[in-house]
């Protein structure tokens, strides 16, 4: 076995494709799973691969399946490559990078026959499968050869599999260098060091291994005009475009990266040009209860205020959300859902907070929920959540999840908002003078009343807001008729909201026999499943709810389909439950297709479940 020197001349990929059994190469249509140990920098390697594939114009998605731990536990990174543009989670992956000794045996067992296993010849003492293509790499020899010592060893070890994958699949090396340059910015030394290892590995594989598997990539042009971004970064960017000025939060996975991004973006643009002082505040509170309180305080004062959290944090916020609903305070809460109940699985994805968030608060409380399904919608809803909160004067909860929030997604370039911020019914000092001010009097009949902001110069503008019973003039009242009037008005406001929140996205096809309803990040799996179901002869219409409360679009869709599958990632079919409550007369049409295991939805699960149900039905 010969090893090249640290500096090598790079030859283009010259590996010939071997006969994959049926003589067919499998091009741009497979999944890679990289098994490593968390805290070893494998994320850099994985993003580098992802970005290079993206640069080649091939639709991709990257998902990090990681442990709730800082360093030392197994982590898996899934890269989906699909010329058809299907980027849902898919298991098992055909290509395994087995770079974690601890899980290697189990990881290898998952490979389908004919799959690929890339492993370190020095790390493992386990038998290889004879029905997969095995490629062994002497990782430690590589590092010795390159003179790599100390802490950086783990990081650079991960670049070895990058070089090997690049060679085996035919990824363009120049894109790897671009991706590294992007990742490390101006730190050219790091780019060179990492690239050196990639090139060494790339060259060694070319000289020492014979490619026999059928998997390869070729350039496409399907990522033009697209960007790569996580949902949480997109949400933060949207919030900035939406005019966020106050964020109060408490660290919790998987929402932390949203506020990290705000902390990254805001100091760059929110500076008073004259004084140089910050015109925003990001406050790490002592807990989520306090965070929600600060948001309500700021929202009441007229700031565009938000927080980001996840299930356990939302539990703590319920008290203030109840106040926000009843005292009618604009506020935005991003719930990046993870698996509950309780601490549950902090690093796994879920849509398990739907019912909780919708009714968050005790007594009769109903909240506005938005459901982004893509990074693009995270951006859009980052903006309009503030508009809706101020127009409807109520907490708005944006229901993202770990998969959407923390993983890296292709998305079309964001469209800048074309309309001015909508501040809702806020009276100026002059308007108070001209028309008077009656805080909870429903002048327009839509349930939405006029508010003033503390600091309004008109002495008649001040009022005491309260979580206790009040009449239309914001005066304390225990009168039954006042209580009923106020609660009925809040209900009227909620009905008004039905026409203000984002409408569902509907995709109808000719001859569809069934309908599908879903929210959020199950979208890619549903799109793929629908395509495959259609090919098997079962066409479906699809309505993707983007907000609660629902409106007539959803009612009509249900009315027009005999069988509708409501797909979601939770145990109890929470969206299904809500829909049956909304339209009990059509409840029997709605079938719940829900499951929760912590992983994103797969097209296979959806397709198999629907087919199984349909075969019984017909």
């Amino acid at each position, binding site marked *: 076995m010969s090893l090249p020197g640290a500096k090598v001349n790079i030859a283009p990929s010259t590996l010939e494709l071997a006969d994959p059994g049926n003589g067919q190469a499998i091009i741009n249509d497979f999944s890679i799973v990289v098994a490593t140990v968390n805290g070893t920098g494998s994320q850099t390697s994985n993003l580098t691969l992802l970005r290079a594939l993206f640069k080649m114009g091939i639709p991709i998605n990257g998902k990090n399946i990681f442990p709730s731990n*800082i360093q*030392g536990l197994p982590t898996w990174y899934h890269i989906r490559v699909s010329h058809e543009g299907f980027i849902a989670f898919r298991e098992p992956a055909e290509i395994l990078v087995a770079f974690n000794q601890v899980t290697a045996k189990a990881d290898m067992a998952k490979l389908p026959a004919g799959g690929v296993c890339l492993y370190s010849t020095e790390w493992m003492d386990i038998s290889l499968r004879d029905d997969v293509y095995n490629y062994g790499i002497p990782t430690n020899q590589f590092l010795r050869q390159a003179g790599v010592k100390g802490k950086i060893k783990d990081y650079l070890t991960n670049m070895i599999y990058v070089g090997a994958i690049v060679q085996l699949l035919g990824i363009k090396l120049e894109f790897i260098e671009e991706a590294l340059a992007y990742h490390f910015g101006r730190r050219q030394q790091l780019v060179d060091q990492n690239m050196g290892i990639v090139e060494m590995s790339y060259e060694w594989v070319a000289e020492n291994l014979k490619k026999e598997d059928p998997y390869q990539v070729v350039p496409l042009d399907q990522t033009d005009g697209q960007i790569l971004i996580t949902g949480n970064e997109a949400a933060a960017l949207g919030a900035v475009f939406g005019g966020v000025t106050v964020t109060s939060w*408490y660290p919790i996975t998987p929402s932390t990266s949203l506020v990290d991004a705000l902390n990254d973006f805001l100091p760059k643009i929110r500076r008073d040009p004259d004084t140089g002082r910050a015109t925003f505040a990001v406050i*790490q509170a*002592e807990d989520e209860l306090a965070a929600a309180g600060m948001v309500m305080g700021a929202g009441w004062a007229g700031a565009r205020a938000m927080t980001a959290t996840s299930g*356990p944090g939302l539990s703590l916020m319920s008290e203030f959300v109840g106040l926000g609903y009843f005292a009618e305070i604009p506020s935005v809460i991003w719930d990046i859902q993870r698996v509950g109940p309780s*601490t549950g699985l902090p690093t796994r994805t879920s849509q398990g907070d739907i019912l909780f968030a919708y009714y968050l608060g005790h007594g009769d409380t109903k909240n506005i929920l938005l459901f982004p399904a893509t990074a693009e919608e995270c951006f859009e809803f980052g903006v309009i959540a503030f508009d809706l909160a101020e127009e409807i004067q109520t907490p708005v909860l944006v229901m993202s999840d770990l998969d959407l929030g923390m993983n890296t997604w292709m998305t079309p370039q964001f469209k800048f908002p074309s309309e001015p911020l909508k501040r809702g019914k806020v009276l100026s000092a002059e308007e108070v003078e001209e028309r008077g001010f009656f805080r909870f009097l429903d002048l327009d009949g839509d349930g939405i009343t006029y508010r003033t902001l503390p600091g309004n110069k008109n002495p008649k503008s001040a009022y005491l807001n309260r979580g206790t019973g009040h009449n239309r003039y914001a005066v304390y009242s225990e009168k039954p008729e006042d209580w009923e009037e106020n609660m009925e008005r809040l209900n009227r406001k909620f009905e008004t909201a039905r026409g203000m929140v984002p409408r569902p996205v509907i995709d109808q096809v000719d001859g569809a026999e069934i309908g599908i309803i879903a929210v959020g990040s199950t979208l890619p799996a549903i799109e793929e499943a629908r395509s495959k179901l259609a090919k098997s002869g079962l066409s479906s219409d699809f309505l993707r709810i983007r907000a609660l409360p629902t409106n007539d679009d959803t009612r009509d869709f249900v009315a027009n389909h005999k069988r509708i599958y409501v797909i979601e990632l939770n145990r109890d079919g929470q969206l299904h439950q809500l829909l049956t409550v909304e339209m009990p007369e059509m409840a029997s049409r709605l079938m719940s297709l829900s499951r929760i295991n912590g992983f994103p939805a797969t097209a296979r699960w959806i397709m198999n479940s629907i087919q199984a149900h349909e075969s019984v039905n017909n």
Partner: protein
Amino acid sequence: MTTIDLETPTLTRKDFVSDQEVRWCPGCGDYSILAQMQKVLPDLGIRRENIVFISGIGCSSRFPYYMNTYGIHSIHGRAPTLATGLAISNPDLSIWVITGDGDGLSIGGNHLIHAIRRNANINIILFNNRVYGLTKGQFSPTSRQGMRTKSSPMGSIEQPLEPLSLALSAGATFVARTIDTNPNHLGETLTRAAAHKGTSLVEVYQNCLIFNPQEWTDYHNRQTRDDHMLFLEDGQPMVFGVNQDQGIIVRDLQPEIVKLGNGISEDGLLVHDATSESPTLAYILSRLRHPAVMGVLREVEGPTYAEGLMHQVAEAKAKKGQSDLLSLYQESDLWEVK
């Protein structure tokens, strides 16, 4: 019939090691605390089944995973409440709350104060690394002002909290501080906390190698640590320093560092008395930054919450006598239609 041997068996360290693989980052101070806990528990003469470890959320809160005892890995900041309920329900238990500077002082600050105030019989071990670990490196309530983290990119503007001062303000009957890199002192401190009746609060300076690696460097380094820590001993003058030539005096209610020699002898120095009824000395010591005091600052007797409850029950019985359900039912305000 199966009989259970109620004699306390002879236990060893191994009896307290659970079957879970310990998963903190390499070099984490938590390992040392775990090792000392598993070392001192066998000598306490408590049955394993009578020991409970309760934690909230955070790196330190993994601790109960690794203890082969009863335990609850509960919710963020709330461990003291569970522990209080437990201590009231079964006063025979040895209850340990494992928490950190985020779990115990930020989200759980409220409960910490009230647990201490009630003096329930629990041992609270607070791992202080002055940073959030599990959520990856945000500043905590004990972080230094100006500390730059992801969540404080321009430096934290908040005043840090001194956990021992807080505990003393809440009326703590046992307050101590130790450090992960001094295993003997750590073990002794845990043993004394266990022996205390009532709430004991032990702050452990604990190293987070990943997110705050420099925090305790001066306290670990052989060349500097004796200048940074003063080890308290009851009845002894407060002397510290690499050459043991510095001492603490109090002038105008302010502590001062003095150099021994040139007419200043140990006789004029503050003498430690953890059992002093007044918490003033302990409070002054808790505020010292250079040097930080190590050891038991305060150790006084006071009625525990469970004792108070039992006393009230006994008092009520003494006054009104033993009642029963039937008489309770008959005495209550029932309007019967006859």
